[in-house]
């Protein structure tokens, strides 16, 4: 219920955050909305000795139109992503999915950057950003760099962020194809997705079908080859490694993936018209 002891530091700027991270190295973790990290710490599954609070970095919370892409500050809360009128217009898939994360209280605190950096394959937004071919901007001791999302997720809770690197921005290209759909299959409204599917045009990404969010490459290849949504969906489980847990077996997850991909492609097709 109670985290083990740590030293709390509040960063006044992204630069200061990176300096503190460099100083404390392995002992330190960034704290954004805190709704991925604090629950782990309360169960003592994580016990960083230093917490660097990014909550004061209001200048990393924004949604702006950069012409060919939308720039979203890493510390933009799910609530703000959900309600940004710019996103409703340009990236309705992302706005909609942000509104599915957790519950209203969680969405008032959790951030898109925090969710992406935490890299839980059962999370909604990583798969959505994968479907949207986003690029991530990270800042570290050596300056800033861009990371294509396809290279970002390395494994379960593992990203290509270097120690001490701070995610500052998510860049999402404005989609060429208008149709979109987000199918989040849960038993209860509050649950993590048993399986989820994010579709933008003919980009199809999967939630909770492996150690990272995955593009449904078999489906995409079939679509590119002219297959119908139903026929393409049959390939949904190819290349995935879904887990078996108390909610679902691997076999059931693979079945759900096929059903949900079919529904997502159909819905995206309707929206494209």
């Amino acid at each position, binding site marked *: 219920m109670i985290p083990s002891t740590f030293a709390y530091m509040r960063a006044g700027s992204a630069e200061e955050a990176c300096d503190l991270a460099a100083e404390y190295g392995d002992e330190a973790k960034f704290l954004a909305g805190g709704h991925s990290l604090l629950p782990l710490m309360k169960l003592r599954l994580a016990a960083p000795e230093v917490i660097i609070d990014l909550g004061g970095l209001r200048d990393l919370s924004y949604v702006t139109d950069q012409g060919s892409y939308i720039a979203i500050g890493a510390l933009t809360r799910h609530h703000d992503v959900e309600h940004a009128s710019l996103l409703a217009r340009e990236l309705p898939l992302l706005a909609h999915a942000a509104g599915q994360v957790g519950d209203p209280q969680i969405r008032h605190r959790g951030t898109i950057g925090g969710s992406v950096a935490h890299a839980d394959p059962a999370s909604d937004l990583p798969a959505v950003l994968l479907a949207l071919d986003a690029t991530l901007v990270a800042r570290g001791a050596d300056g800033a760099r861009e990371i294509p999302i396809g290279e970002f997720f390395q494994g379960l809770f593992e990203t290509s962020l270097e120690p001490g690197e701070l995610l500052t921005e998510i860049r999402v290209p404005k989609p060429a194809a208008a149709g979109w759909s987000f199918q989040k299959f849960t*038993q209860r*409204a509050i649950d993590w997705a*048993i399986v989820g599917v994010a579709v933008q045009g003919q980009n199809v990404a999967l939630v909770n079908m492996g150690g990272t969010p995955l593009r449904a490459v078999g489906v995409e290849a079939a679509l590119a080859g002219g297959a119908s949504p139903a026929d393409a969906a049959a390939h949904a489980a190819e290349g995935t490694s879904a887990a078996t847990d108390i909610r679902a077996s691997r076999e*059931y997850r693979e*079945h759900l993936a096929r059903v949900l991909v079919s529904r997502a492609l159909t819905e995206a097709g309707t929206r494209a018209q």
Partner: protein
Amino acid sequence: MSIMGTRVIRTEDPRLLTAGGVYVDDLRTPELSGAALLTFVRSPVAHARITGIDTSEALAQPGVIAVLTVADMDDLAPPPPDSGEGPSEAPMPIGGVWSEPLLAVDTVRYVGEPVAVVITDGRYQGEDAADLVSVDYDPLPAVVGPAAAVSGETLLFPAAGTNIMATHPVPADDAPFEACEVVVEQDIVNQRVACLPLEGRATAASFSGGKLTVWHSSQNAQLCRFIVAGVLGMDPAQIRVVVPDVGGGFGAKVGIDRDAIIVAWAARKIGRALRWAETRSENLVGMTQGRAQLQHIKIGGSRDGRILAYRIDVIQDAGAYGRIGLLLPSLTCLMAPGVYDIPEVQTGFRQVVTNATPISAYRGAGRPEATAAVERAVDLFAAEIGMDPAEVRRRNFVPADQFPFATKTGALYDSGRYEQALDKVLAAAGYDQLRDEQRRRRASGDHKQLGIGVSAYVEITAADAGAGETAKIEVKDDGTVVVYTGSSAHGQGHHTAWAMLVQDELGIPMDQVTVIHGDTDLIPVGVGTYGSRSLQLGGSAVHKAALEVKDEARHQAAAMLEAAEADVVLDIATGLWQVRGDPDTSLSWAQVAGHTSGGSLIADVSFSAERPTFPFGAHVSVVEVDTETGQVKMLRHVTVDDAGPVLNPVLAEGQRHGGIAQGAAQALFEEVLYDADGNPLTSTLADYAAISAPDLPSFELAASETPTDLNPLGAKGIGEAGTIGSTPAIQNAVVDAVAHLGVRHIDMPATPQRVWIAINAALNSARSTRQESE
């Protein structure tokens, strides 16, 4: 006009809604100022010998006052020696070789079992220090699930020679079934669920001047005192138990449990006031859980729909210790035939121990299990003979003119109108139109199919009617009233209900009435709130006390008015005592009370009833099943729950709503799971699928009031009825939704995966049948 039966919003609410309730962990009473915090060290393994405990590192931590283990319990008398006779025939208790210690002695038998306690100045330090208590465990094989228990390969209690605590064998008489045209058998799981009150277990204790005060989140303070006195070897007069606001109980907070007794003991042991409030993770392994039966049913009858024989064979999982004795499977067998007049009923059970959290009462306590089994059986029978399940029920009800009705299992149902309840609920649900919609969807091959489930139930309330309940009414010389009740509300609204009774009998307005419960100094004798007993027993006690205080007042008023008692009347509308026919002479209650030597009118009574009452009802559940994914959505839930005259519809509806939700939770969502080593897989709310608002529709409640003649209020108990009726209706609805695909049974909870597996199995079976015949 009488206030009885009218909608009255609660007197409890303003305080709860503005300042918030005062639950044990909120207490700021001076006796607890400076109290230390108690944190448990619990077993992380399901079954093991304890080979050593090293408390030295924990003791060295800042703020640690003490670390206590069983070695420190030398101030307690050793438990009585095992009589060697085995478990008693009575439903409870169970002791001897099956005994449960306080802090673990040399064996742990469930994950979460208390092994040591750490006492610290602050809450946060407690969790830190508890992590540092080092316990050496020598693991033993874990007995997971009742089947493994029966096999006896590993024994939890070697001295018992078995894991089977008790056997009441089912009569091995197949003749009644052989005489039937149709017989169906089915294995049924009534799964283990967590009670999950929003407030977990919490206890505070202070020992000072030879007196022990215990504040405990409980359903009955007086029982707590009795238990603590026995375990700690104290005179009850030296113990005060106070029950403040309680954040839900549902049966798991009856009396005081092992962990809380340890808190009381520790406070006395170290001479320092202590507080304890468990975390939810502790609660999901440490608080007693519910249900956990494997059932085998056999039902036989004729093709015209008449049920002729029913058998249920139960294996009750008790968890690691038999805390509630044999009460649960006994009640399941007692209520086995439900609302049906079945010529031959055969019941039996075995109760086993397993390396899991102990099982005890949970809303319904044995009766939901009985109802779920017989209602599944009736639907299986209906499917086998191809008859509408509502019609089959109709053909087998105990007729309305047969009450009081003695069942084959030894229950005496007081009153009931089962067919009328079914008629009402079917009409309210629009049953025929629902079947039409179902036919349309089946014909069109819609991937979302409609399921309509029916249940008809009867249940036993105030099963301990003879134990009764107490009430003391004091009318003071300022005209206000204090009611001391032995009941112990934890959300039921007794303060409002008892004040309504007082207003109705005494003509004193509710806002002049204060109701007190839960303090053994003020109410030394009382039984408490569980088993849906409080209105019929506690309310009747209040009613009885009101009548007595009225008699005393009449006597006083007659003297004051110099009139004959027979001529003195109380005008309920004004609350004034008058001489009949002479409205100018009147005395207020305040005046009459002031005239007594003590300055108040007092009546102190107990009320008991001759036997239990049997509320009944019928539910219709409408669900939508996505046959491609197995997802189930509750569309509607319509009920009749008849517990006699309704004192306050607001309160009765609330009880029905809450019951329906918990029953739905078992049917569709909730299940306590363990892995093969006995490790809990659902020990946080992230994993345990507690039912939430978007999972449920609003409910449709139809009214029905069939009184009992067993108490002056005509009342039966409504508290558990909703749970008992809803679970089987919803389970039956899910099966019904996919029955046309060949599905006959789906175990609870009907999770999407379980439903999908059932659909697949039925379709595969149909496919191979077709292939065979081709």
